[in-house]
């Protein structure tokens, strides 16, 4: 069963990110990898850097900023492959941001398209 772990952080938590937080994120990714459950994942840049697009009547509409102006933003995501929801919750609980942010766990639908174009890991 494949799941997405979606990390939502407040703007303050976003701005507080330091080297330690980045290192913790990396260590977590390595742990997922070592357990053989990681499909892929990354932290995201701040919502200030987001651009949102939609296509209506064949025209692209582009605006500055994230999809929704909320108090909490998607800050990172991971895709994992584990037996069931309890196993996914177990991994989500170990996420370094789980102690101050929120982790949403969602099952992936259908098949996953493997990439392979990543230049670095």
């Amino acid at each position, binding site marked *: 069963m494949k799941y997405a772990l979606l990390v939502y952080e407040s703007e303050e938590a976003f701005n507080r990110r330091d080297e330690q937080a980045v290192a913790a994120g990396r260590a977590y990714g390595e742990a997922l990898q070592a357990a053989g459950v990681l499909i892929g994942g990354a932290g995201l840049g701040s919502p200030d850097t987001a651009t949102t697009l939609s296509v209506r009547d064949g025209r692209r509409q582009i605006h500055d900023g994230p999809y929704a102006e909320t108090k909490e933003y998607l800050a990172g995501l991971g895709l994992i492959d584990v*037996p*069931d*929801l*309890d196993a996914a919750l177990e991994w989500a609980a170990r996420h370094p941001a789980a102690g101050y942010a929120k982790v949403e766990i969602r099952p992936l*639908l*259908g098949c996953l398209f493997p990439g392979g174009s990543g230049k670095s890991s």
Partner: protein
Amino acid sequence: MSEPLAYAAVEAIARGTYGRLVAYLASRAGDVAGAEDALSDAFAAALERWPADGVPDKPEAWLLHVARNRMIDAARRSQVRQNSERLLLHLAEEARKVAATHEQFPDERLKLLFVCAHPAIDPAARTPLMLQTVLGLDAARIAAAFLVSPAAMGQRLVRVKAKIREAAIPFRVPGPREWDERVPFVLDAIYSAYTTGWEHLAEAWSAHRGLAEEAISLGRTLVQLLPSEPEARGLLALMLHCEARRAARHTSRGEFVPLDAQDPALWSRPMMAEAEAHLRSAAAFQRMGRYQLEAAIQSIHAQRAATGRIDWREILLLYEGLVRIAPGIGALAGRAVALAQADGPAAGFAALEEIPAGRVVNYQPYWAARGHLLQLLGRKDEARSAFGRAASLTDDPALRVYLLQRTADRH
């Protein structure tokens, strides 16, 4: 075989083993809705075939055989779920073995209970889901008991069952590390069915009636399935002690009678004895918990039947324990009343005043307790307004009449 006999056989199985059949199929396929659909197809097939062919030797195995065939067909039709067919073939193999040997099929109801009360399930859906899947209550009856429309309840149940399947909530008994975190969800869902039923006993016409009995049978099932969990016995003891007082809680004219004023001769001795037995075997585990404490408090009240008095000091001690491990608003209010009985109304009222105002706004028992203590303190006007507030917060007509009468008390 005559039709009525075959129908009676189908009905007996539907009543007696429905939960076990659903639990068995659902736990193998990870799909409650699919298991229920397949099982109702199997029951329909039985109603068609048994009158002509006779009731099979092992009717449950026959039903499981038909149901798993339906599930395999359904899995083949659905392209989304690639893994399920393998699981179902495994299920088919097992079902064949159950039919061939004379083994009973395994009881998976405990796994089903843990799924129903999984923290990833909407809390409002946990109790209805248990009642439907484990006891086989129909959605219309559950809807009536929870005061929502059958359509809304149906939708809620469909939604959670889809989540169980799509999010792959596992059918498993939690390990020791998660045990303490997960067991209370199961206990709370059962207790919530009981209180929903209990609060409406006065209304003879109410659809809530009967829900209390269903909750008790869930409680019995749980004690059977978790023989070494003292809190399961504590919960059952608590429900039995309350249930024992059913006949004493209202006069023949339907008037509400508070616990202290009830005639103990009307309390059910067999239920009280059963409650005490469960409480004693729970105590042997030496693992105190919320439900054992609440049952122990009811047990002290029950002793009035033998001694004619209530040991408030003992009740206070139990409430002190309760507020330490489960400082719910009910426990805090109960402690204040016990304190008033043991150490005088001023001490009790002071304890009541310590409860944060924000938590008691809509809590009827708090306002009734407040009215009672203010009355004992001779603060009549304030007592009257507290009883009035309590009366406006209950939806039980008999209790409302009682509380309104107390607003007029002169003592």
